[in-house]
């Protein structure tokens, strides 16, 4: 079984995001970029499936700017076998919407015929939490989102999902799309030798036109602004003072 893992290049989760003063977006020039943290978890899971003999090949895919090559090299260094880069924009500030990404991924899935697609639950830049579900819809496949445990057995995967009330287990017929949550695993770091090896692994470059997909956005960004900020308040010197303050303010 082949496993496809879509990985997105996003601003590193440790970077303090700065909104551009002209309201056009967030500053991404000269900012540290990394693989979306959820996608690292997805890559890790795919590699573990391969190590367990349940997957035969792990293919990482990224849609975006050419620099997403680095993200794919990271996936290859972690253990993915090959990569596909779909260059869909020249401008690092142009985000490709989940619907367009899902259409490209669906076209790739039709070519590659994976038995499983492992997506992240959410990209930490646009916070959409949509691509995996959209991809499953376009392929007519089943989906299991927000996975914290995945067991692949024959033609099905049993998935424990993190939901509002706790956990839900579902079984989904393969091929399927599974989106992964934070507690599924702890992604490995790529070792130096593996980083070197990754440079020689195949990385194919494509464009949306190769798949006949129009990536024009459906949502026009009118404005991006800073959220209202909070100010630091007062520091109490003791529990008693804190209680007095809270009572005085009518908070408790």
């Amino acid at each position: 079984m082949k496993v496809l893992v879509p990985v997105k290049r996003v601003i590193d989760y440790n970077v303090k995001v700065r909104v551009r003063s002209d309201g056009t977006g967030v500053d991404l020039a000269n900012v540290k970029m990394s693989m979306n943290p959820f996608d690292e978890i997805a890559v890790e899971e795919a590699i573990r499936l391969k190590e367990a003999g349940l997957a035969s090949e792990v293919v990482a895919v990224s849609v975006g700017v050419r620099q997403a090559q680095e993200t794919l090299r990271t996936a290859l260094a972690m253990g993915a076998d090959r990569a596909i880069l779909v260059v869909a924009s020249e401008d690092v500030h142009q985000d490709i919407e989940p619907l367009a990404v899902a259409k490209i991924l669906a076209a790739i899935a039709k070519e590659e015929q994976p038995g499983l697609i492992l997506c992240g639950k959410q990209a930490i830049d646009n916070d959409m939490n949509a691509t995996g579900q959209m991809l499953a819809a376009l392929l007519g496949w089943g989906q299991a989102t927000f996975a914290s445990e995945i067991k692949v057995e024959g033609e099905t995967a049993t998935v424990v999902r993190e939901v509002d009330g706790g956990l839900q287990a579902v079984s989904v017929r393969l091929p399927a799309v599974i989106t992964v949550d934070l507690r599924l695993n702890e992604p490995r770091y790529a070792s130096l030798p593996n980083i070197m090896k990754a440079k020689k692994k195949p990385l194919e470059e494509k464009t949306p036109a190769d798949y006949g997909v129009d990536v024009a956005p459906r949502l026009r960004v009118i404005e991006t602004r800073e959220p209202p900020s909070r100010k630091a308040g007062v520091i109490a010197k003791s529990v008693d003072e804190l209680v007095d303050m809270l009572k005085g303010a009518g908070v408790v």
Partner: protein
Amino acid sequence: MAVLLIADVTNDGLGFDATAKAVTAARALGDVTVLVMGPRAAAEEAATIEGVAKVLLAEDAALGHRLAEPAADLVVALAPGFTHVVAPATADAKNILPRVAALLDVMVISDVTAIRDAETFERPIYAGNALQTVQSSDRIKVLTIRTAGFDAAPRGGSAPIEAAPGVSDPGLSQWVEDRVAKSGRPELTSARVVVSGGRGIGSKEGFQIVEKLADRLGAAVGASRAAVDAGYAPNDWQVGQTGKVVAPDLYVALGISGAIQHLAGMKDSKTIVAINKDPEAPIFQVADYGLVADLFEAVPALTEKL
């Protein structure tokens, strides 16, 4: 303009608070038809929400566990009669609505915090570090509503209930089991007071300190990701960018450093109180009231004095 609103239905019936808050948001867009996938009792309760014009009830067993594939098929079948398909931004809705949107060939707009007009919406991006206003050119707008910013529509309505068309289960996935813990405490996303613990709590047993203070305040209990990852607290307590978003009157953070991903889930709380032994912890930059102290001493004392 006509809105199809997917009600929040849990194993206990209608999620009234989430649904009623989404009704408030949806009413700005047009007449609201609520779709209840679940038992009749949930539909009867939804019908009492003021501002609901009609309730559609789908009692099919295939929908009982809110599996995405049959649920999305039903919503897609109903969608042509509507300009908007909306739902409160619950885990269920986030599972189903993007699937609906793709089947309709439209974008989904997740976690809407404000509605400017019928096609213009505001939503947070980058863990709430920026707010973006987007305008949709799609024929049907599919959105999830972040309920924390909307007041619940009151009870007092009496909308008619009609049966929704039947669904056929595509059989792509199967429900196995729910592992849901019951608690007598208020629900996290609708509680007026939330007390949360972080890695500083140190152990599962340590969380009793958090729970005791919560019980004293009639509060729901929350946690940071670090506390959940470490197994101190269950996953459904996680507050933050990728957990639950809360905006209670009072949020108490105990042993939580205040990472941006945590703040994303609670910084719209009316009053924030933080107890942390590190005076430099970023949580103090957003807290209205802070106390630099060892929580193992301070929290029991606080619980006693309140």
